[in-house]
Each structure stands twice: as structure tokens, then as C-alpha cells.
């Protein structure tokens, strides 16, 4: 039996939302349905990147999001066999661990259990993983921001012998060349939005060819109506977390990613986010906080370290540090629901795909990070330098410097990874976190005030 010990915090001082347990159940049911989708007569699409699930839902498909599956394996500490299969196939351990976990699954799925003797993955794991993840009927790639995302699906396509159809959606990186460039505005934003919308129209044609059925636009509008409502409730819940002490934390919202990212748009999804918001409202009304004794309010930048989710939430709570906000929550996952026109949702969907938090130049990210740092009255930033995710990590040093220079807010960095626990170094996080919290204490004692504070104005950089 494995006891996870990396200096386990003494006592759990988190107060996680109970509603997320309902979410876990919904997610588990979703995967169970997917594992038997073929038996249920569904065609299966493998996809990566932005949340295309409402499109697939309207086309009557079953969908598997590669990153989500890899994250799930990591969160359940089941990533090992897939990663070893990937290593055996030739993937280097420095490669995006989402992709090599998922590609390892693809290798196992293709190989089945034909040749267990030469593999490093045992027969049982091999059969188990291969039989669980149903092989795709086709691929759709919808990756913005990270070039690796597009290349990953191309390699999946090749692992499956180049026999299956594949559709690629290209996303211009929102670099900000033009003088009028800015968040959600300017010529670059408008033209990119229309370009991606046009590709979604092409995707509909492609899916009609694959399914042999006309695309159900009404179904798309319906699904997007639910998703928009769920996204609004999510935004309202996030807004409530600006309260002091914070009623819920970043970690609670991490637990809400899967539902907003790939569950079907339906009443159950809306009910779930209504439940989340109600629970938070109840906490605000009754002065209940997300961790015991909130002393510090922190921002978390970086893609999630899925193997360490529960551990990290306890680690921070142990020090009275409420992690409240982060790029992966505030600036991702249908975060601008007002853009969605439910009677013609394609443009708003295209825009959300472009709004992937790795698809902005650092100027926009700087604006968004400073804004959240001010809005949530953040005392310090924690950067998860995500070892195999260059997309998320690229601008982090610039963001840290900007927060210090513009708002007087300190930062620390620690290394970890999305789906490979071996890159995580607990001692480094622990010592740096404590050092930053001590520095915050000293600054408070001396009466040094950070520039940030609830309601501080953060302007778009000129």
C-alpha cells in the first residue's frame, strides 16, 4: 500500500465546498458513459484544446478530451502505465506530460494486448487502459496558444495508422501587433474571431460527413444556452470569493473545471453551478471561510498539478494562506459568457477558444493578472513553473516582475508538472512559501502597504 507522505500537513485546515462532491459524481458518470459509448452505438471523437463539447453534443457524438483524460489519470495516480507505454514507444520525459500520457493510452489502445511480453507495462494495466478508453472514429484539434497541442493530435493520427479522419482548427496567437490591440477588442481580435468562427462552420460540414446526419443547430443553441447560464453562475460565484475571508478557494474552483470544460450543456450542469454558487452565498451570509484562519490571500499562476491537488490545498491552508484566484480559473473556461449569443453561438464559442489563457501575449496577461491581483486583494503570487507546459510558463517571470513593480506584490516560484509527479519538489515549495509569508508579515509590521487593494484600478498598459 502506498502512503503519500511528502511532509503531509499536520491537520487538514481546508473547508472544501461540499457541492464539488456532486461534481465528482457527474464526472465519474460521464467517463463511465464514454467507456461504453461504442457499445451504445455512438461514434467517438478524440479532441484537444478548447471546449468543443457542445458541437459534439449537437452532432450526437461521444467525446473524449485528451488533456482531461490525462489529468484524470494523474489525479487518480493512474498515469504510470500510460506514461511508461509512452516512454517505451519513445516519448521523452520532458515532453508535455498531458500529451505523453494520452499518447501512451493511444499506443496501448492500438496495441491492445497483442505483445505484452516486450512491453514494460504489465498485461493487466495494458488490457485495463486499452479497454477503457474507446478508440476514436475521428479527431478534432482545437488547440489555441500552444503549438504542441496541434502537433500532439497529428501524432495521435499517425499512431492510429493515418487511417482516421482529422480536422484542425487554427487559432491565431493574440500577440497584439496592431495599435488598437487590447483584451476583447481591436482589429486583431475581430479578425481572429471571424476566422475561427468560419472554421467552426467547416467543422460542422466535416461532422455531417462523419456522422451522415444533418447537424442539429437547435440542439447546439440549447446546449450553449445551458452552458452560458452555468458560466454566468460560475462567474457570480467567483465574484463572491472576493469577500474576506474568502468563502471558497482556487482549489474548489479547480474541482469545478471538469464540469464546465467538458460535461454536456444541460439542466444538470446549470443545477450544479447554481448549487456551487448557493453554497458560496450561504457561506458569505454566515461568515464561513474556505480555510481556517485566513491570514494571507494568494494568487496561483500555472496549469494544475493534478497529482497534487488535495495535497497542495492542504499545504497552503496549513499556513493560513487562502489561494483565491489564478489564471487557470479566472481567465479560462467560458469566462466571458456575455460574448455568447444563444441564438447564434458560433462567434462567441470561437472567441472563447481564442481566449485560452495561453493564447495571449504577455501584455494582455499582465493586464489580466494585475487586475485579478488588485480585485481579490492579493498579498502574494505563487507561480507553478509547470515543467512540461512551456505555454503556461513562458510569461511567468515577466508577470512576477510586473506585480512587484506595479503593485508591490511579491512572488515565489516552484516547479511541478501537470501529470508527472516526479517534477514536484515539495521542500522547495514549502521553504519558499514560508519565506514569502514571513516577508509579508514583516511588511505588514512595518506598515509597508502593497499598492494593490480591493478596487485598485488597473489600466490597460499604454
Amino acid at each position, binding site marked *: 500500500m502506498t502512503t503519500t507522505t511528502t511532509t503531509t500537513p499536520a491537520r487538514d485546515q481546508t473547508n472544501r465546498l461540499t457541492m464539488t462532491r456532486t461534481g465528482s459524481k457527474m464526472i465519474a458518470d460521464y467517463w463511465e458513459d464514454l467507456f461504453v459509448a461504442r457499445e451504445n452505438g455512438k461514434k467517438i471523437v478524440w479532441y484537444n484544446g478548447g471546449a468543443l463539447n457542445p458541437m459534439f453534443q449537437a452532432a450526437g457524438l461521444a467525446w473524449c478530451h485528451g488533456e482531461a483524460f490525462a489529468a484524470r489519470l494523474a489525479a487518480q495516480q493512474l498515469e504510470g502505465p500510460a506514461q*511508461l507505454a509512452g516512454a517505451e514507444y519513445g516519448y521523452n520525459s520532458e515532453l508535455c506530460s498531458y500529451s505523453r500520457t494520452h499518447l501512451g493510452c493511444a499506443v496501448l489502445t492500438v496495441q491492445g494486448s497483442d505483445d505484452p*511480453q516486450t512491453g*514494460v507495462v504489465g498485461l493487466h494495466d495494458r488490457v485495463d487502459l486499452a479497454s477503457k478508453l474507446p478508440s476514436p472514429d475521428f479527431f478534432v484539434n482545437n488547440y489555441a496558444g500552444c503549438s504542441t497541442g496541434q502537433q500532439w493530435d497529428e501524432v495521435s493520427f499517425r499512431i492510429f495508422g493515418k487511417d482516421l479522419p482529422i480536422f484542425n482548427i487554427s487559432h491565431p496567437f493574440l500577440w497584439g501587433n496592431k495599435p488598437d490591440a487590447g483584451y476583447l477588442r481591436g482589429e486583431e481580435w475581430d479578425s481572429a474571431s471571424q476566422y475561427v468562427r468560419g472554421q467552426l462552420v467547416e467543422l460542422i460540414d466535416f461532422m455531417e460527413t462523419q456522422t451522415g446526419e444533418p447537424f442539429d443547430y437547435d440542439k447546439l443553441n440549447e446546449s450553449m444556452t445551458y452552458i452560458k447560464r452555468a458560466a454566468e453562475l460560475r462567474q457570480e460565484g467567483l465574484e463572491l470569493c472576493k469577500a474576506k475571508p474568502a468563502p471558497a478557494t482556487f482549489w474548489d474552483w479547480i474541482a469545478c473545471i471538469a464540469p464546465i470544460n467538458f460535461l454536456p450543456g444541460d439542466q444538470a450542469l446549470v443545477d450544479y453551478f447554481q448549487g456551487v454558487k448557493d453554497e458560496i452565498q450561504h457561506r458569505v451570509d454566515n461568515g464561513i471561510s474556505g480555510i481556517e484562519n485566513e491570514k494571507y490571500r494568494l494568487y496561483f499562476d500555472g496549469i494544475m498539478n493534478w497529482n497534487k491537488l488535495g495535497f497542495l490545498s492542504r499545504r497552503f491552508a496549513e499556513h493560513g494562506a487562502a489561494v483565491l484566484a489564478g489564471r487557470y480559473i479566472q481567465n479560462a473556461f467560458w469566462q466571458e459568457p456575455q460574448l455568447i449569443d444563444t441564438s447564434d453561438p458560433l462567434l462567441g464559442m470561437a472567441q472563447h477558444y481564442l481566449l485560452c489563457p495561453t493564447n495571449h501575449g504577455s501584455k494582455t496577461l499582465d493586464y489580466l493578472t494585475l487586475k485579478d491581483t488588485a480585485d481579490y486583494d492579493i498579498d502574494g503570487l505563487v507561480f507553478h513553473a509547470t515543467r512540461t507546459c512551456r505555454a503556461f510558463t513562458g510569461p511567468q517571470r515577466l508577470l512576477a516582475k510586473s506585480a512587484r513593480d506595479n503593485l508591490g506584490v511579491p512572488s515565489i516560484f516552484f516547479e511541478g508538472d501537470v501529470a508527472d*509527479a516526479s517534477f514536484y519538489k515539495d521542500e522547495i515549495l514549502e521553504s519558499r512559501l514560508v519565506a514569502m509569508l514571513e516577508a509579508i508579515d514583516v511588511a505588514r509590521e512595518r506598515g509597508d502597504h502593497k499598492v494593490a487593494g480591493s478596487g485598485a484600478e488597473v489600466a490597460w498598459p499604454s
Partner: protein
Amino acid sequence: MTRRVLGVDLGSTTAKAVVVDEAGAILASSTVAMGAVSRAGMHRCIDEAVGRAGIEVGDVSGTISTGYGRKLVPGIQRSYTEITCHARGVAAMVPGVRLIVDIGGQDSKAITVDKDGLVVDFAMNDRCASGTGRFYEVLARAIEIELPELGPLAMRGSQDLEVSSMCATFAETEIVSLMAQDMRVEDIASSVHRAIAGRTLALVAQVGRRTPVVMTGGVARNPAAVHFLSRALDHEVLVPEQPQISGAYGAALLAMESFLRTSPPVPDVPGADFIFPRVDHTAAGHSCAGCDGHLRGKVELGAAIPLRSS
């Protein structure tokens, strides 16, 4: 008089020498721990092996060297890489072997061989020391025991602790922190061995798992390292009687084969099939040493340029 040849494996921390006869049987061997590559250690090792074989150095009909210090060995016919030599030596020690996991002082390798004992593929660790003999030394130092005691201690562990960092630089703090939580040293030792076996598995993954598996190198004398590798591979791992000398033995066999011309002659290939001179290998790789020498302009270390706010 029967001919005798010598194989010398000058590794990063130990020198190994083997004398074989015409039939390829080991007449004598020697292993000398040097701490670091040293000529004196090497000479002592050669002298010991030759002495044990009851002959003089001058009686040796041919010598082949291998290992990182292979170019330091005097009087050689030629040298081969340790990959080729380990494969040859292990194939003779354990006929039928298909996968060799060799873990030495500063590197680890996985080698697959064909039915004739010839290398099919190989993978070596990068500069990271995790999973090498060096890593076990760090572990032994951190838990304050002697290296030979490490394996038996690890075999007594029962609890599986998570060791998050396999980096040799951070391992020590990691281990110390486990000790600070009153974890049993047996459990720490066994957990680290398990984690290292996992790393080795990733190396094996690069060349493919084959059986029978043989483990060689100094680390193969550690019973816990063998045990956990065996568990990780889910297969029995064989260890030759003298796991450290397989490279030197392979070199000696190659020397004898070359001497007797029982194997096909290796073509006369400049650069590969020659006696490597010790220093004057055309200075290749040293032409710029990280700098162009004549790069001008203000390119030296200086004050950080402030970030623009706009």
C-alpha cells in the same frame, strides 16, 4: 604456450581487469576502487590481475580497453565502448541474455542484445545522476550508514513512502525531511530503491523489455537494487557472479577474438578501429568551448535591463 589476453575497464570510480585464455575462460581478475579515474589505480589493477594469472605483463598477447578512461590504458590494441564490451561479456557469462541493465558509478545503461550477443540498441542516462551508483551514495550518506549496508537495510523496509524528487541534488533534503518526520530508515531506503527502479524502468522502456534480464555494474551487488528492479520489470533479474567485471571480460574476449581472428576482421576504419591516442584526438570539440573568442560588442554580464512597462 597458450596465449593470454587482457581486458581493462577503466570506469569512473573503479578499474577492472580480466585475463582470459584462448578458450575465453577467465584466468584471473581484479577490481580496484579508485574514487576517481587514476592511472596508479589502473596500473595496480592490471598488475594484480596479471599476477593472479601467474604471468608477467610482457606475457600478455593483446589488450583491449573500455570504459570512460579507456584511452588512458597503455599498450592496447584498440578500445571499444563499454556498450559493446558489456554486451560481449555478459553474453558469455549468461548465454542467451537479451537485456542488460548496467548501473555503474556515474551512469546507467540498458542494452538489448541479439542471439549472438551483439548490441541491438542501447540507452544511457543523461547527465542526471538519479538511478546511478552516485545516487545510492547520496542516500547512504543522508541516512548515515556505510554503502554495503544499504541493500540489506532496504530489504527490511515495509512501508512504501512517496519520494517526490529523484534529483540527486535535492534527494538529500528530501530524505532528511522524511527522517525529520520519524519515518523508519528501512522504509526510506526501500522507498528510494523502489523509486530508482522506476527510473531504470524508463531507461529500459527506451530499448524495450526483453528477457532474460541480467544486471551488471557495481550496483548489481546491492541486493535491494536487484530486488526492486526485478519487481519493476515483473521478471527475474539475473546477476553474474562478478557483475562488475563484465565490461573488462567482454574487452578481453574481444581481444582474444581479434587475436585469433575467429570473428570477421573489423575493416580498417580511421577514427574507430585504431588505438585512441590519449590527448591528440584532433582537438575536436574544443574549437570554441562555449565562446567564439572574437565576438565583440557589449555582450558581457551587465546590469539587468529594466522591463518596459508598456
